[in-house]
């Protein structure tokens, strides 16, 4: 019998970035099939192609041996493909029932019937163990319960293939257990599931078969039984070109080194973290989504409040109380989501480069366009931003050049402490290398650099030390050169080193 879903040689490019590079996959009936891979490995694009959200450039998708075109989400639904997205796509102000029947509300005598909804969903809600008031607004439910509502909404369509895109990224342990129990129950009833995640522990707990993807290709597909986390990690990492990372530069700084000391800081997901970083050092921050890396950077920048703990900055003072204070004290943050938090897309490079100098610092009450132009020209030359003029709108630039604008606006303020939150996300490989060189240069200038990344080779290739956060705690501090990809990924995923090697230093 043909597999329920077969994907053959799927290819997809976004501008200069290859998302899928000939990926193939077979999913058998009635199994939970996991797809794992690092960021940018092509997992999400594969799911979106199956759900009809993106159109592949080439390749075939077969359902039960029949080639099909899935050119819209409606077409996917019509063919029995249901998808639960990572981000909840629900209406928090409306009732649970209303959320279950969005756009296919049952009618009685021409009117929307809550009674019909109740009857149609009762059995399913019971089965999912969703003991909530279905008339209450969704926002009263816990995140875990909301996730189950999202699942229920998709299940009401009785899909043949259920796709789960990182369904547990917002869930705590108990809710995850509950979700897994539901998924196992669904498997008993013959539902086929495609489960995407980068949390290996959980993948191993739930799946029957695992496909490892890397750079838009499928590397290996095997039964979970007989497969180890280590093997999966090796598949995910593969071999990376060694010369991607420029060597450290000789220090250009004179005078005594500066230090940032963080003492028992808690806040957000973060609990009781302490470490220190010296000038001229690149300190890496690693952790899964929700492990607290972003919280830590935001607290150090003053954008989030710390619940407790304090810090000593090079200027001898403590945690900044606002982003404005941070900027004035020479602390800078390059945020993870540059389009939303780092740039004004409908404005020129000239305008964006002036953000900090004019926007945050109180130097001169005037805004001189000619000075702004020379600032922008200086950074365009220094960071090699590819553009015709400083008047170009930022949304006309490529991702890498946009990121350079964000870095450039901070360099104009001569920061002492540089916080980089995944600065190379969505940046093409050439621009990545240039950003690495920039980071090396800033480090040689004697600035303190904290660098978070979701790509391991980057952390290992660039950082002097790597701090690993797991569920808000600092679980490891490793010196670069003493760690390989494998151990690091294990630490990030489980909070522990592989058992073969030494135990985690606390």
């Amino acid at each position: 019998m043909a597999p329920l879903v077969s994907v053959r040689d799927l290819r997809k490019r976004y501008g200069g970035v290859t998302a899928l590079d000939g990926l193939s996959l077979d999913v058998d009936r009635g199994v939970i099939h996991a797809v794992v891979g690092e960021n940018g490995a092509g997992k999400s694009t594969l799911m979106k192609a199956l759900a009809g959200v993106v159109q592949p450039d080439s390749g075939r998708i077969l359902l039960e041996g029949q080639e099909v075109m899935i050119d819209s989400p409606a077409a996917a639904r019509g063919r029995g493909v249901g998808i639960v997205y990572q981000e909840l796509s629900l209406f928090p102000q409306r009732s649970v029932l209303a959320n279950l029947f969005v756009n296919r509300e049952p009618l009685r005598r021409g009117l929307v019937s809550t009674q019909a909804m109740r009857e149609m969903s009762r059995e399913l809600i019971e089965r999912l163990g969703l003991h909530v008031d279905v008339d209450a607004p969704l926002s009263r439910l816990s995140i875990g319960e909301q996730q189950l509502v999202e699942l229920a909404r998709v299940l009401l369509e009785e899909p043949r293939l259920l796709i789960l895109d990182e369904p547990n990224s917002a869930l705590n342990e108990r809710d995850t257990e509950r979700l897994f129990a539901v998924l196992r129950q669904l498997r008993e009833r013959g539902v086929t599931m495609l489960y995407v995640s980068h949390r290996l522990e959980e993948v191993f707990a739930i799946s029957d078969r695992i496909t490892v993807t890397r750079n838009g290709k499928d590397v290996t597909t095997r039964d979970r039984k007989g497969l180890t986390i280590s093997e999966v990690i090796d598949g995910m990492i593969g071999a990376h070109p060694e010369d991607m990372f420029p060597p450290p530069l000789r220090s250009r700084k004179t005078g005594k080194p500066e230090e940032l000391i963080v003492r028992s800081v808690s806040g957000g997901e973060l609990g009781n973290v302490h470490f220190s970083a010296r000038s001229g050092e690149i300190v890496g921050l690693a952790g899964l989504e929700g492990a607290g890396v972003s919280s830590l950077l935001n607290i150090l920048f003053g954008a989030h409040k710390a619940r407790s703990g304090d810090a000593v900055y090079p200027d001898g003072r403590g945690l900044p109380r606002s982003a404005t204070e941070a900027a004035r004290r020479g602390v800078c943050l390059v945020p993870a989501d540059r389009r939303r938090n780092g740039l004004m897309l409908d404005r020129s490079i000239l305008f964006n480069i002036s953000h900090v100098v004019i926007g945050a610092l109180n130097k001169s009450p005037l805004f001189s366009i000619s000075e702004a132009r020379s600032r922008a020209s200086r950074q365009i030359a220094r960071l090699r931003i590819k553009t015709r003029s400083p008047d170009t709108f930022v949304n006309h630039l490529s991702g890498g050049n946009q990121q350079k604008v964000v870095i450039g606006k901070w360099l104009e303020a001569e920061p002492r402490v540089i916080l980089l939150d995944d600065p190379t996300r969505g940046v093409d490989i050439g621009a990545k290398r240039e950003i690495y060189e920039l980071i090396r240069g800033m480090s040689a200038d004697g600035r303190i650099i904290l660098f978070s990344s979701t790509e391991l080779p980057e952390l290992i290739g660039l950082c002097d030390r790597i701090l690993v956060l797991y569920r808000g705690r600092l679980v490891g501090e490793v010196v670069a050169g003493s760690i390989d990809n494998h151990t690091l990924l294990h630490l990030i995923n489980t909070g522990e080193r592989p058992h073969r090697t030494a135990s985690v230093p606390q």
Partner: protein
Amino acid sequence: MTDTEKGQWDATAQGAARLALARRRRRFRLPEETGVIVALIVMIAVIGLAKPRFLNPINLFTVLGNTTFQGMLSLGMVFLLAIREIDLSVGWMFNFSAVVAALLMVAGLNPWFAMIAGIAFGALLGLVNGLLAISLRLPSIIVTLGTFSMFEGLALVINNGRAINPPNPTSTYFTLISAKIFGVVPIVAIVFVSLAVILHFALHHTRFGYRVQAVGSNPDAALLAGIPNALVRLQTLVLMGAIAGLSGSLYVGFRGAIDPQEGSDFVLTVIAAVIIGGTPLSGGYGTVFGAMVGMLIIQAIASGIIFFGIDATWSTFVTGAVIIVAVVLDQVVKYHRLRRAAAQRFLDG
């Protein structure tokens, strides 16, 4: 091609030529306000052709003089729309400040000091709006919807629902402010145009104006660049109040009295002028001169309709239609500019 290779390519003669071309294009780019200015000229020409009396300078300057008081408010409103805020209470800030200034004159204060007090009082009302919006984390549209009625109520309490007539209308304050230079150009019109020049400079050439546009363009990014968003919002609302105070105090000098209902219907006209002028509701950008010209267009319609002998009530209808036409034209222009930019990006590859 990698970015580096492209950079090198750009440095070649071809790249240099292209840069020069871009620079030249920038030099010759028409100001954003060109469209509305052309619209105003066409409108005046059309009315003038049919009714040549309309083109009499005395009449044209009277039109300009009549726009002054609402026009000043629209200049301040540009800053608010640019920062993604709006102030619905402007009409009553205008009235309340005028009442306070007039009452101080009645009480015997020198009219010039009363005017300064009126400006300060307007700024205070703006401060109330700003503090409410920021401390309660409310959008300014909600706060000013409330203060719209609060200011109206308080103004009616202190003027007992009657017009305030300051004594002594022959003092220099009243004679100067209602004067016309060479018998043609009203002083208040000169104040209006000067204020527009000052505020244009403030929006485009000062730190404050830069921050207003930055916060309006992307508040999240502004915050994470260290821009003090709350402070800038507060300053903008205070500026609006001070301008309303100035407008109100001048009005007292110009008319010699302040009626209890004067200003009650200002806000929609003021916002309409800003939008006709080309300031988008979505924030991030504003044009002070555009708002001034927008107000002139509205005023030209109103007086043009009188010249044609049409019932004056029609001018309200026409003003509404002009808003829609202006916004549609603006969208068409933007769409084409976007298309051109996309094509250019494609060519740049």
